């Protein structure tokens, strides 16, 4: 276990940024999102949830794939795939970190998404424990420990220090380059940290969603849930925007589009939302013509389809962003509960 004084954090950022691009939550125009660190950046690690999740460093909202250019009678094709450079993403919460595993299962299984893979290989993830979980958090329902996050390096705030614990080869390599800044933690430090972690876990128990129970969800009972009458009522108020999907750390659907540049075509991919009515539009039209069907798709995917393809793992990490951002406040927790997902207290 290593440590660094909170007041020295800027030196740490600078030292990392000297060698690699550093993505860190920054307050830009009043909202906290991951941004590239530079001198004078308004780093904000106290805001628990960035608006956009950390997935965007591996899976950006827009990404060029290939471009076509017409020259006379020939068409030249240029791939926009580039090997990623090494980068670091700092301040990833436990929930967002787990979301990378969920995305990995989609993008790194055959056929491998090379755009995603290269970023994953070159990115070092530094996580951060959540000192002050919020009311919309329910990561614990998915077995995530917000006091002990995963990642290449786990970091924790306690007292005047940021504690630093490398967990993987990548993490150790990065730590080596920062040796001059990091001090070794003493037994006393370890005690302080442990106390802070206990604090976090106790706070979790006071959270409103602590009793959330997903045992009725998973691969079983697919048809019964699919055909349930409840979807109609749940989806009634949904306005069909994509706010929930675009702030979600685990939503991985994208669309591939062509942009006519006038002198050629740029093919790119961009996030798509199953809440949109032109989602998976085909020649015959859309397979889900009503908002109820689209709404059902989103939650069935997270809580039933994904687990049935992935050993029972849910594709939700309980970050609670959708709980906070939905314009009409319909969210996954209300859906889970509507199907009996609450423990009797």
């Amino acid at each position, binding site marked *: 276990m290593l440590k660094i004084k909170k007041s020295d954090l800027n030196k740490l950022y600078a030292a990392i940024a000297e060698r690699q691009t550093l993505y860190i939550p920054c307050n830009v125009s009043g909202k906290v999102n991951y941004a590239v660190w530079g001198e004078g950046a308004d780093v904000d690690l106290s805001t628990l949830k960035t608006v956009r999740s950390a997935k965007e460093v591996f899976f950006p909202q827009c990404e060029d794939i290939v471009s076509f250019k017409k020259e006379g009678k020939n068409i030249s094709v240029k791939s926009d795939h580039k090997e990623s450079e090494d980068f670091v993403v700092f301040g990833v919460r436990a929930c967002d970190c787990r979301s990378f595993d969920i995305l990995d299962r989609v993008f790194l299984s055959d056929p491998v998404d090379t755009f995603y893979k290269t970023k994953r290989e070159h990115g070092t993830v530094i996580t951060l424990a959540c000192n002050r979980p919020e009311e919309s958090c329910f990561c614990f329902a998915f077995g995530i420990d917000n006091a002990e996050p995963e990642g290449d390096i786990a970091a924790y705030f306690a007292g005047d220090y940021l504690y630093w614990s490398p967990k993987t080869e990548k993490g150790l390599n990065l730590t080596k380059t920062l040796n001059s800044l990091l001090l070794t933690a003493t037994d006393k430090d370890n005690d302080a940290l442990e106390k802070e972690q206990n604090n976090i876990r106790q706070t979790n128990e006071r959270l409103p969603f602590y009793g959330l129970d997903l045992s009725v969800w998973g691969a079983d009972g697919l048809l019964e849930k699919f055909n349930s009458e409840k979807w109609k009522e749940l989806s009634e108020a949904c306005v069909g925007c994509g706010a929930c999907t675009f702030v979600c750390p685990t939503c991985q659907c994208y669309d591939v589009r062509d*942009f006519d*540049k*006038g*002198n050629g075509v*740029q093919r790119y991919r961009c996030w798509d939302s199953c809440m949109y009515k032109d989602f998976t539009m085909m020649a015959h039209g859309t397979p889900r013509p009503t908002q109820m069907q689209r709404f059902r798709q989103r939650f069935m995917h997270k809580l039933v389809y994904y687990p049935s393809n992935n050993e029972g793992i849910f594709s939700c990490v309980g970050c609670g962003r959708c709980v906070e951002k939905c314009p009409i406040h319909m969210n996954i927790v209300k859906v889970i509960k509507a199907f009996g997902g609450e423990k009797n207290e």
Partner: protein
Amino acid sequence: MSVENKEFKPTIVAFCCNWCSYAGADLAGSGRMQYPADVKIIRVPCSCRVNPMFILRAFQRGADGVILCGCHPGDCHYSTGNYYTRRRMTMLFDFLDYLGIERGRTRVEWVSAAEGARFASVMNDFVKKVRDLGPNRKITDLRCKPVEKEGE
């Protein structure tokens, strides 16, 4: 070839109504009146046909200035089309100005079928003004820039 030495030649899109302004442009042409070749005319049935989207799309694809020409108010072939144009464009232009986009890049002029000379002078004047503003950088799509212009 250095970029600085090249004089900036603005790309201008002119939407001209079929009944007055396009005929005015024709007259300017047949009367051999000079106006810059950088003006690209798009014929529309009425100035009122021009949706704000057209203007933005022209900027997107490389226009440095957009001018919209129609019949004089009161002379619209469809009686009232240009009255609507007038309101819409006033609103749009003020809005673009509000977003910080140079207000000199957009313009509405009324040019009748008999005003060939006026058409030429309006275009000369507009091109000059846009040239003074320099290339459009605030409301343009970087993907549409021709490759050789990169790094300009």
